[in-house]
Structure formats: C-alpha cells, structure tokens
C-alpha cells in the first residue's frame, strides 16, 4: 500500500473524528470509577505550545516558507541536528498507512514516545481550540480550565466561577470511594478543578514527602469554625481540613509504592511524573492528576528552547508509561496535554513564534486507540484567520468530554457541565473516538 498523500490525510481525518458517542455509561465503568481505578493525568504545557513544531508538516511549502529562518539556522549551524522524524520511519512496519502520512513527522526530541506510538497507545488530536479563542496567556488558559471562552457578548447565565472538571463533579458528585479527587504537582493555581463543590478533595503537592514532614501539628478546624468565620479564613480552614483528610492516603501510597521501571528526566517535570507514578502505584485512589511543564512561550530562539521542552515532556511521559505498566495501571490511565493556545504559523523577527490559536494535543494510555484525530490544519493563507493563525477544528469541550467519558461521567453530566453550564446547550460534545474501552 502506498503512503497517503497530504490531501488523503486531510480527507481521512475529516471522517474519522466524527464517529458517534461511545456507550460508556455502563454500570461496569461506573463501578471502576467509583473504585478510583481510572485516572486522567492532565499535563499543562505552560506558555502556549507550538503545535506545528510538535507534529510537523515538514514538506508543506507554506510551512517551509513561514519558518525559513529557523530552518536556515538549523541547516547552517547544526548539520547533525535531527529536527524531525518522518512518521514513515517512526511507526512500526506492521502499522497501517494511517500511521504514516507522507510529509508529516514528529519533532525529533519526542522520540522517546516512539514505543508508545508503535504500540498504538498515542493519539494526536489536531486543531484543538475554541472558536473565540483568546491570544492572552491568562485569558487563554483560564478559558481552557473553565472549559469555555468568555466573550464580551456572553450573558450571565454561563457559570464563570468553576473549572470544567469541578462542574462535572458537581453534576455527578465526587466519589466517596476516592482518597482524594485531584492531586496537583507543579502549578497549583492553574487547573480545571476550582470553584465550590461539596465533598471534593483537591490537593497540591511538591512531592508525597510534603505530607510527612510536620514539625508543628496543623490546626484541626471544628465544623463550627468552618461556618462562623470570615470567608477568607474559612477557605484557609477548609484547606487545613482537606490536608488532614488526605494525609493518610498520600502517606500510605508513597510508602507502599513498589520499585518501578522508567527513567525520569532530572527536571521539575520529571519529578512531577515520578511522584505521580509513586502515588498511583502505591494505590492512591484518585481520578485526576495535573502536572505542568513551563517555558513554551517561545517568542525567540525557539529551536533550542522548544526542543529541550519537548524532550522533557516525552521522556517524562515515556517513563510514566513504563512505571504504570509495571504497576498494572497503564490501561486505566489517560494522559492528556493542554496549553493556552498554539503559536503563529509565521515566525517573528527573532526566530520565535508569537501567540496563535489552535494546536495539536496528545492523549496517551493503554486505553487509547493510537493514531491521528481531527484534521491536519491547512496552512494556506485563505484558510488561516486574519492574523495568520490556525483556526480551531475540534472544540476543546469535545476533548474534555472524552476525558470525562473515560472517567465515567454520564452523558447527562457531560451535557450539563460542558454544554448547558457553558451557555452552549447545543454544543457538540461527542467524545473523540480515541478510546478503546466501551
């Protein structure tokens, strides 16, 4: 069979992504979720990841023209630098042509993900974003965490004060079987878990050791104190109560964690991945972890900086995969990336890229059907938006709905949290068809 042409590639994706809803709302899944046996690990690529330098259309003439200064730099200075690995080379021989689109490759520093890709456990979801996406870092990421963009014309019905995952828990109720519902390693304040929700236990950690190192006992608030004090003090007390409630689960998991495979990068992100693996392997019942990797705001000198970041990302995910396979947890784990926006097709004067719109993101895990989803973006000028940015093809809410379905949130809960409560009751929330499990 011959490799697909670029045109075929585009056509192929336009059909594949739009399959119907997956019948996930089964009793068995509910039970698994209640047991805390499924989990999502969300990785924030802080700063705005350049999707075009991640999944690279390296023969596309528009791409080559737009990035010629960076490409020239690579040619001039580092002839041995491997910039991109074509999918024809990256994919296993036995994999179908779907995995080998001509003219596309991955950034060479993602190579440690090749085993995951060859096993068909890595999905690349292209063109993710919001139709009225914002190019501000702060508004951008808050839109992603909220699960909806705020436009100036938006009326007051939309719920602006909660994250999308918190709204799902409000719709369905956080499981009492979980030790804790959300663990944050890295940036704590940036998360889809915020806003009030009865019974939700969320935590930020540097490492599990945070919970054991206590020279002075933490105040244990009475239930009365949680009602009578000023709001700010109540928030403090509620976090103190939270810390008491989750302490045992974290400490036990860290102590119980077996020795695991996986060689983690020596970096903040690598440590976050290692801590996450320890908690999961140690048996912590927790459906959601959030990690963050910072530095993606590559306005200048992108070649080196971005390459290092992608290596850190890939090495961390690859190590997590090995650890979780050893722990028998990989099939119940969904790793997914997100970022406030993609970056502009045309590089700026500094061999960097300015803030853009849509971008590709990864879903990985034993329950993932690997491959490409969504359309490879057309880079022709008339297909870009007014500023020369890639228009979103898949609304980010469908991406979240996929994770929600994996975690066992019913379609009714998803429609409420991601549709009605975002002020868009008719929003298409069909999960992306990349999950094996049904």
């Amino acid at each position, binding site marked *: 069979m011959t490799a697909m042409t670029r045109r075929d590639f585009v056509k192929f994706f336009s059909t594949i992504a739009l399959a119907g809803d997956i019948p996930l709302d089964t009793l068995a899944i509910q039970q698994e979720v209640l047991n805390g046996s499924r989990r999502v690990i969300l990785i924030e690529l802080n700063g705005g990841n350049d999707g075009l330098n991640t999944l690279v259309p390296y023969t596309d003439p528009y791409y080559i023209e737009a990035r010629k200064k960076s490409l020239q730099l690579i040619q001039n200075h580092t002839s041995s630098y491997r910039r991109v690995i074509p999918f024809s080379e990256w994919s296993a021989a036995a994999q179908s042509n779907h995995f080998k689109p001509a003219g596309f490759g991955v950034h060479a520093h993602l190579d440690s993900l090749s085993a995951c890709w060859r096993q068909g456990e890595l999905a690349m979801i292209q063109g993710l974003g919001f139709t009225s996406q914002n190019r501000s870092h702060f508004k951008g990421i808050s839109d992603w965490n909220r699960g909806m963009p705020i436009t100036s014309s938006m009326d007051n019905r939309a719920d602006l004060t909660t994250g999308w995952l918190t709204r799902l828990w409000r719709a369905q109720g956080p499981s009492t079987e979980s030790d804790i519902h959300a663990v944050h390693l890295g940036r704590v304040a940036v998360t889809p878990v915020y806003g009030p929700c009865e019974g939700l236990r969320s935590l930020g950690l540097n490492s599990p050791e945070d919970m054991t190192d206590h020279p002075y006992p933490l105040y244990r608030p009475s239930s009365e104190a949680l009602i009578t004090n000023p709001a700010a003090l109540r928030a403090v007390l509620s976090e103190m109560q939270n810390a008491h409630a989750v302490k045992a689960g974290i400490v036990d998991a860290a102590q119980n964690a077996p020795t695991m495979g996986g060689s983690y990068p020596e970096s903040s992100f690598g440590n976050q991945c290692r801590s996450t693996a320890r908690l999961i392997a140690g048996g912590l019942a927790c459906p959601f972890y959030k990690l963050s990797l910072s530095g993606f705001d590559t306005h200048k000198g992108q070649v080196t900086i971005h390459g290092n970041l992608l290596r850190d990302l890939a090495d961390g995910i690859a190590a997590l995969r090995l650890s979780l396979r050893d722990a028998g947890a990989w099939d119940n784990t969904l790793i997914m990336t997100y970022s406030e926006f993609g970056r502009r097709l045309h590089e*700026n004067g500094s061999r960097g890229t300015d803030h853009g719109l849509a971008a590709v993101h990864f879903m990985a895990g034993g329950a993932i059907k690997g491959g490409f989803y969504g359309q490879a973006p057309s880079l022709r000028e008339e297909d870009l938006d007014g500023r020369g940015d890639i228009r979103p093809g898949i609304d980010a809410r469908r991406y979240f709905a996929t994770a929600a379905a994996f975690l066992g949130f019913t379609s009714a809960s998803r429609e409420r949290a991601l549709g009605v409560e975002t002020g868009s009751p008719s929003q298409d929330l069909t999960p992306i068809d990349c999950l094996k499990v049904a």
Partner: protein
Amino acid sequence: MAMKLLFELDGQSKGTLTNGALALAAVTTVTGCGAQGGSSEAPQQHQDSGGMEVIPRRDDGPRPSFPNTITSISFENDAGGVIEVNQVTGTTRVVFNFDGGTAATSLPVPPISTREERSYDFSGARIGSVVATFHPTPLNLFETHPEETLAAKRMIWDIGLPVATDDLYEFVGMSRSEAATLMVNQRMSPEPDAPYPSWITQAVPSNDELRAMSGAERKARELQVENRRSQVSYWLLDQLTNGTHYVSERLVLFWHNIFTTSISSTPPEVMLRQHQLYRRLCVGALPEFLKSMSRDPGMVSYLDSDENVKGAPNENFARELMELFTFGESSTSQAYTEQDIIELSRCFTGYSLTPNYDYIFRPDLHDVGEKVLFGKTLAAGNSLDVGGDGDLAINLILDRKVNGKSAVGVYLTKRLWQECYGDVLPEDEAEIDHIAALWSGPYAWDLKKFYQAVAASSRAGDARRLGARFRSHLDLFIGYIRPCQIDADFALLQDIHKFLAKLEQSLLEPPDVAGWPGGSTWISTKSVLMRNQFLSNISGGNGRVREDLKPLLKYLLLTVPSLTQPGSFLDASRQARTWIMDPAFQVR
C-alpha cells in the same frame, strides 16, 4: 536582684492623647535596698490619688526585701501638676510614698521614641536608688482604645506593611485622610534606607566579552551572577523587614508585580538598576514611569523589545503593555484590538540594547511608517529624532477613554484597590471610577496623590474587609518580623529566602509576566501545609521578640480573633509562635 514595677497611666491621661504623642510608662527597678529590716512583703497594686496603677511584673524571680512597702508613687510635672502623657521631653518630678516617709526626685523624661535607663539617686531616702526605664506602653492603647488602635493598624497595613507599636501609635486617633497624608509623605522615599549593593553601577559583560574569557573567568562570572541574585534578595528582604519607608517598600513590589520582569532571566546588575528606577519613579508620575519602564534594559530584554524590529515585529511587549500594564485584557477593557497590538509593536521597533545591556535606540531598526492606534494617526517619518513613537503611543494609551472613563485610570486604580483592600465590593466600583477620574484629570497622573486618594477612601473601612484578605507568603514573614521587632539576622533572612523559593514567591521572580495573581491563590492544601511548617521553623522560642512587646503579640500579630487562644491577652507567657501558628494569622 531587681524588682520591676510597671506603671500604667490611667484612662483619663490617655484621653489627652494628641497626634504624635505617645503614652508613657515607667518601668522602675528598685535596686540596692538601702535600709535594713522592715517588711518583706512584695509590692501590691496601688492606686494613688492621681489614679496611677502599679502592676507588679511576675517573671523576675525572687522578690527583694524592702525596708518599707511602697504605698504610692506619683508623677508630677515641673509645675506641680499631674504628668501629661503627651509631654515628651522635660523634667518630671516623681514622688515615692512609703511607710514612714516620702522620697522624691526629678526625672528628666527621655524622648519617647527611645528606650533609656537612668539611675536616680535617692540618697538620704530610705529606699536607695531607682532605675527608671521609660518607653511607650502599648497596653494602654490596645486596651483602652481598641477601635482606634485597630483602625490605625488597618490603615497602615492597607497600603504599607505591618509595624510595631512605636510606629503604630503615631497613627492612633488619626482620620484616614490624615494617616494617608502622613504615610505618603513620610513613609515613602525615592531612596532605600540601606544603600544598594555597591555593584549596582557595574557594567554587564557582553557576549563577546564572555566568549573572550577563559573557562575559569567565565565560571567566576557565573558564580558572581548567582551570588548577586541572592544578594538582591537578601538586600530587599532587609528593606522589607527593617525599612522605615514601608509604603515605598510595599508599592515598589506592587508595581513590579504589574510591570513584571524576572531576576531569573535578567543579569542581577540590570535587575537592581531597574528596582532603583521603579523605586524612584513610583513616587513621581505615571507617564514618566511608563516611558522609562519601556526603555528599561530589564524590560526591553524580558518582553523581547530588542527583538522587535521593522518589518518583523515581535508583539510581546506591545501586547502586555496594554493587556497587563495599562488597560486590562481586551474583552474586558474594550480598550484595544488585535490590530492595535500590531500598530503599537511597530511604535516600539528600534528599542534595543547595547552588547553590555544598556538601552539604545537603533534608528535603522525603527519602522518610520504611519501607525494608527485607537483610530488616531501617528504620522509617518517623524519619529526617528525622538527615539521612536513609543512615548507618543504611551500618551495615546494614557488618553484612551472607554465609555467616557479613563481606561488606564480605572484599570490601575482597581489594581491598587485590590492590593490594598482585597476584593472589589460592588459598592467600591463608583469610588474606583471617582479616583480614576481624579487621577487622570486634576491630579495629572501624580502617583502620590493617587496613593493618597486610595488610602484615604471612605470606602476603605468597610467591615466586610476585616479578615477577608489572604496573606501572601511574604506577608506571613514580614507580618511576624516587623511587628515583633525581630532582629532579622542573616540566618533568618536565609531561611526566609529559602522558604519563599519553595513557596514559589521568590522576590522579583514572579511565575509569569502577569505576576502573582494573589488573593485566594496563596492558599491551597499544599501551601497551608508548607506555611505551617515554615512558620513553625522560624518562630521557635520567644527570645527574638522585643521584651516589652511580648504581652502585646496577639494584638500586633492578629487582626481577627484567635481560634486557638481565646484567653486573656495579658498572658505574657504566650509565645509569638502561639499566635503565628493560629489560623487567624493566615488572613488579615
């Protein structure tokens, strides 16, 4: 063998407090009892005819034997009347009445702001000599004027930093407006108390110079950079914990949290010079501040202005100048469009750096074409002589009105309001608009008038704000060291430096260009655990706290009632740690 007596002045005398006057108390130590025999009873509490209360202190070991029990002590001024508490200098006659006699002496009263011990010779009298220590007694005001004291504490903390009694008492009884005037005029200064590290003026080696260095020299420079970054942090922590111009200390960090850069990606010499610039400009006027900031080498580098060139603009600085520094995000502020970002970035083309990190305008890289900003045209071709269109563009930004209101005025007033008062209450909106209109109009963007207007606002005292503000991690440490007058030695500063790094609030190193978001984001399960741990680490023992402040710690440290120690504040055995580890210490 010493017996200390703490004299408190009565409520009537306290009632005569006026601005600038402090309450007086004398701690009198009776030493070397002269005569033999007599009663061995400890002194009791007494009321003299003037209503003066004598409270024996409890913690001074074995009681001395007295030849006679003191029955009363009275103070008189030179004219023979009862001492006025606002008398800060001069001579005061002190009369000791005791069984079988009277001893009297004239005490020169030391200035209130200093603590002083003096011996007074009672030769001929039967109780020997007396050592009197005069110092301001906070007890009076906290107990007898709780509302005024709390109001003073809030006024100072709103726009300044927590203080000990010496400073606090100066504000007791003042109106907000008087306090605001005093703070802006006397607690701000363009120069810091401690001199900048001497290397502030040193040049930064260029890349060529670095390349020409030997390996050892380069290594030495790397170490120097690391070392100087720490020095900046220690120096600044020292200002924050000891600086007397604490409104400047607070506001220079406030502005750096808007016009952000990061010491982690900036040479320390450049960073310190920028800090010096901000400190000087934040007592000037906003237009000059914005224009100088746009040319500051730290900013030029941090937001890539040096990469922003004719024909290939890098819009990083232009975008953040409007979104974060002046207007607020576009869909909220409605003050600018994506096209305005492009036009604005063209105005700043040519803003650049020399190889040694000094600012330079490079005319050849400047886009001289016509720009249209907010619908107004900046004509082509006449911007080279004046170093670019940046200053003209900043003027247009300052003039920008949305719905008849100054967009910059409203945004920055709201930012300062949140800094001072926490959340914006619905009733605050009109006040913010009012201050913004004054600032952008009659005040001509004068910054001290701006601070004064915010600090003096009649909306400030809303009871809903009490205990409604989260303390940042830095606030916790400053809120312990300053009011307790802890001697913050280098080891303590090192600890704090380390803790701030772990809590991700390293000084001058914000998480991103938007600065620290503040408010409730300081609090998470992780941060309450770490804060608990670090506070307990630095507050061990009570020895660091100034002796006379120990009985007052609860009042000095907390602004809302304690959750753990509802008992009497007079209990001096409570250590600073008791109050610091209280959840109430986490808010203000």
